[in-house]
């Protein structure tokens, strides 16, 4: 056995280009003759669209085209949705508003001009007649009788209600010693990558094919959807993902501009580019997380959980795009976590409001459900007078209970926990954080007038979702290895990871392998990068393809040296007969023999390439324990996060530094959600968080160092034993920090039931108790 790269913490192959400023993000693509698109957006949250007149805009020098929904054809194509539960009353979004606008930022008309400046100048010349309608911005209010109605087919503003049930819930609650219920709310926040979205489209005059470069997480899906909407064969569209500057789920959506740019490029016969500005990003990017949870838990007096009963209302915003229902579904099926919950019933209500459409963001339902559960468990522990770690310990599933079938089926797949060592991870995290010693430290701090708190969060995450991912491995006659993958990563270091996997199979240096992502012209089928699926799905496809290539290479090498294939080994970039290094044949010689007309064994097909698809619906679940320590300033309500401990189990780790980077980055986003991030809307539906000045994301002074412990319980569901893990930090981070703030202040007599815990919110909570510590409230 030669070098083993899986598990090696190697530097990333991606980095030198990025460090030199040589990367090619979508805005860096410069095509000759390119035109720039700008979108006129609704200033109203809800209004009837009486008329749109683009004639004056068309007349401005430098403007090449301007159009509105009326120019999209008699029946404009709606953006499709991917899930269709029985109760669904779909409200698809059209590329431009047709007769009604339903959120601020919804596209109304488009200008294509010689520069973005000119295009935006021309937007001011478009005349639009609106008849404002009453808006509804709160999901709870939206589903009450008499609320303003968004869509005629859903007069109660309920787009879907999905019910998830397992075990005998009625009996569980009837037989309980204690039933505790709570309403717990998570706010609207989302991914906010540093690179906004962007699309460039160009129809080639020779082939009549449309090439699209897009900052998207799912190029193949984009091609399929676009072909359907444009009513052209998929083969006439090629989608290529350039470097992508962060995504976190929100670039796995199909947005109006994803249609409008190619449509405009087709109309004008020149390349068209649209780069979202930061203001547009805040107005129109998929928002996420906003859920109201009404949760009831049935327990024995000793803290044994008997059942959970819940209703949650997801604020889906104005329309449902492809994954619009996923957050609601996954929040329901994640609610029980990795605890033994014998009976569960969750009603997931999807409400329409006059806000930007919501969709999946890092965790997609799991952060919301985890907050509801982990916050509730702390409240339960306090009411039972029980230690919160002991309450969790008592109910955690054990390795002997794996695999554990929850009996639930989400919109994605059946929910079966495949493997894990939950109690061991839990104890490891408590040890690392010195949970046992914290109560004394907290007491000592309180005596000094300081408020410190420790928060625990136990989470799990769905990873590596199906149905498939594609990957090809080819060796050119020069001996160079290229991987094509259906993944479309946004900073995860996936090129390095896939090269490490292939290097183990082929025994070539990993950094000599070229990895190409997300190009529909290179791989017929692909899914993309979301749901923490790169290692599981793209990784396994590469294992499959490189295994095939290795087997064929060994057969070719054996043929060349007249040996038996089973006697051949691969080592240091050569094949040779085991124990006889002088028989060595290079990859270039092997691949040259494989070319058509080359020296192959009788009956062997030419070329040295394998295209493989890993088809799998059984998704592995990773999990982890987060413990945060915070200090709350009693005078200002400002929270400072101090120590932060994570124990993470994602099965086999291909590249530890990549994995740790995912955890640290995820924690920062979770912390942001717990303490500062919020997409605020006024009662009239006007968005109030439309720049980095009023939507705060964590900076270098806000985020602590994260201490990480790993467990590696291998997944039985794929040959590498990997589980995805990219979303866990954001799931655990939110609730660990929120629970820590609660632990710091709840002894005063308040209860934390919502996030974000901005300073003013925390200060109000402390003041509401009337028992604020010395200093608190002195500025009132």
């Amino acid at each position: 056995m030669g070098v083993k790269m899986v598990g090696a913490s190697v530097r990333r192959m991606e980095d030198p280009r990025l460090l030199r400023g040589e990367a090619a993000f979508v805005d860096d693509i410069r095509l000759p003759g390119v035109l720039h698109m700008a979108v006129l957006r609704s200033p109203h949250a809800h209004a009837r669209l009486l008329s749109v007149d683009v004639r004056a805009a068309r007349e401005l020098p430098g403007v090449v085209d301007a159009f509105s929904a009326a120019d999209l054809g008699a029946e404009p194509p709606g953006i499709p949705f991917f899930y269709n539960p029985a109760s669904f009353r779909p409200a698809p979004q059209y590329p431009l508003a047709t007769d009604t606008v339903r959120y601020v930022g919804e596209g109304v008309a488009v200008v294509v001009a010689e520069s973005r400046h000119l295009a935006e100048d021309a937007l001011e010349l478009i005349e639009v007649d609106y008849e404002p309608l009453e808006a509804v911005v709160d999901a709870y209010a939206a589903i009450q009788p008499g609320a303003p109605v968004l869509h005629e087919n859903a007069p109660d503003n309920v787009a879907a209600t999905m019910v998830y049930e397992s075990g005998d819930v009625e009996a569980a609650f009837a037989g309980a010693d204690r039933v505790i219920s709570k309403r717990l709310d998570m706010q609207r926040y989302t991914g906010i990558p540093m690179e906004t979205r962007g699309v460039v489209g160009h129809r080639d005059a020779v082939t009549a094919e449309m090439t699209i470069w897009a900052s998207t997480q799912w190029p193949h899906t984009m091609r399929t959807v676009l072909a359907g909407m444009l009513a052209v064969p998929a083969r006439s569209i090629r989608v290529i993902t350039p470097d992508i500057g962060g995504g976190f789920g929100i670039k796995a959506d199909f947005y109006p501009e994803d249609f409008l740019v190619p449509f405009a490029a087709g109309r004008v016969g020149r390349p068209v580019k649209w780069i979202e500005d930061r203001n547009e990003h805040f107005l129109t990017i998929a928002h996420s997380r906003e859920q109201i949870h009404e949760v009831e838990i049935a327990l024995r007096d000793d803290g044994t959980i008997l059942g959970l009963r819940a209703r949650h209302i997801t604020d889906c915003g104005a329309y449902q795009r492809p994954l619009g229902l996923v957050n609601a579904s996954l929040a329901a099926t994640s609610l029980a976590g990795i605890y033994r919950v014998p009976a569960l019933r969750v009603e997931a209500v999807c409400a329409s409001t006059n806000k930007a459409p919501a969709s999946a963001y890092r965790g997609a339902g799991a952060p919301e459900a985890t907050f509801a559960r982990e916050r509730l468990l702390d409240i339960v522990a306090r009411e039972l007078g029980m230690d919160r770690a002991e309450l969790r310990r008592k109910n955690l599933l054990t390795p002997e209970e794996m695999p554990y079938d929850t009996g639930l089926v989400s919109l994605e797949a059946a929910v079966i926990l495949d493997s894990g060592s939950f109690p061991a991870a839990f104890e490891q995290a408590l040890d690392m954080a010195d949970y046992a010693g914290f109560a004394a430290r907290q007491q000592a701090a309180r005596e000094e007038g300081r408020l410190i708190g420790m928060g625990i969060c136990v989470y799990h995450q769905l990873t590596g979702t199906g149905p498939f991912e594609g990957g090809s491995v080819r060796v050119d006659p020069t001996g160079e290895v290229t991987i094509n993958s259906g993944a479309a990563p946004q900073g995860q270091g996936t090129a390095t990871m896939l090269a490490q996997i292939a290097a183990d199979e082929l025994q070539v240096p990993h950094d000599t392998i070229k990895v190409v992502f997300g190009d529909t012209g290179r791989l017929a089928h692909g899914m993309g990068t979301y749901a923490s699926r790169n290692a599981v799905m793209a990784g396994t496809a590469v294992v499959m393809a490189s295994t095939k290539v290795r087997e064929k290479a060994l057969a070719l090498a054996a043929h060349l040296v007249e040996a038996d294939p089973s006697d051949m080994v691969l080592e240091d970039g050569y094949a040779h007969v085991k124990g006889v290094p002088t028989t060595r044949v290079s990859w270039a010689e092997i691949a040259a023999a494989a070319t058509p007309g080359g020296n192959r064994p009788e009956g062997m097909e030419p070329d040295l390439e394998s295209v493989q698809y890993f088809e799998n619906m059984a998704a592995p679940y990773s999990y982890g324990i987060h413990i945060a320590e915070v200090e709350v300033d009693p005078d200002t309500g400002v929270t400072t996060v101090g120590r932060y401990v994570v124990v993470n189990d994602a099965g086999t780790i291909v590249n530890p530094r990549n994995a740790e980077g995912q955890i640290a980055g995820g924690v920062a986003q979770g912390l942001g959600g717990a303490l500062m991030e919020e997409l605020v809307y006024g009662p009239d539906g006007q968005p109030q968080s439309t720049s980095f000045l009023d939507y705060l994301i964590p900076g270098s002074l806000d985020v602590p160092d994260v201490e990480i412990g790993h467990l590696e319980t291998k997944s039985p569901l794929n040959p590498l034993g990997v589980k995805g893990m990219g979303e866990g930090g954001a799931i655990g981070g939110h609730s660990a920090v929120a629970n820590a703030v609660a632990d710091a202040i709840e002894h005063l007599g308040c209860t934390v039931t919502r996030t974000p815990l901005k300073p003013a919110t925390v200060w109000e909570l402390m003041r509401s108790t009337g028992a604020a510590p010395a200093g608190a409230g002195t500025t009132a």
Partner: protein
Amino acid sequence: MDVDERTTADHVGLREKTITVTVNGDSYQRTVPVRRSLVDFLREDLGLTGSHVGCEQGVCGACTVLLDGEPIRACLMFAVQADGNELTTVEGLASGEELHPIQQAFWDHHGLQCGFCTPGFLLTTYDFLREKHGATEPEIREALSGNLCRCTGYQGIVRSVQAADETWER
């Protein structure tokens, strides 16, 4: 604004002006619309796409470049305001094939993920370490606090700056 430099168009944005700037040691003369931002000028007129546009409001720091040696937000300046000045962008850090010690440190210590914010962090670090030796972690975090990163949680970036402090001979 010099009135004589107006174009025949009555639209203020269409006025143009010829400017000369030195970028990474090379001198460029270009005629640009007066409303073009410095970062757009670098990217579109000079093809130096390493400086990224993250917010256009001076908050995120992705467009940080050095103007006569001082870090500035290239989205908050017009190109015409840089007339006669010297600029350093991320493309100017490496010496040929050899990465600058700061770039090398970011590579060695996992100081980036998507890499979009990275050019701004590199130039901010360059300015910080040029004056500072033996920086403490709080000092580094303070120095980086004007640049936003959404991927890393800053941990890798802080380690990278610490490493560059050791390795950069200055």
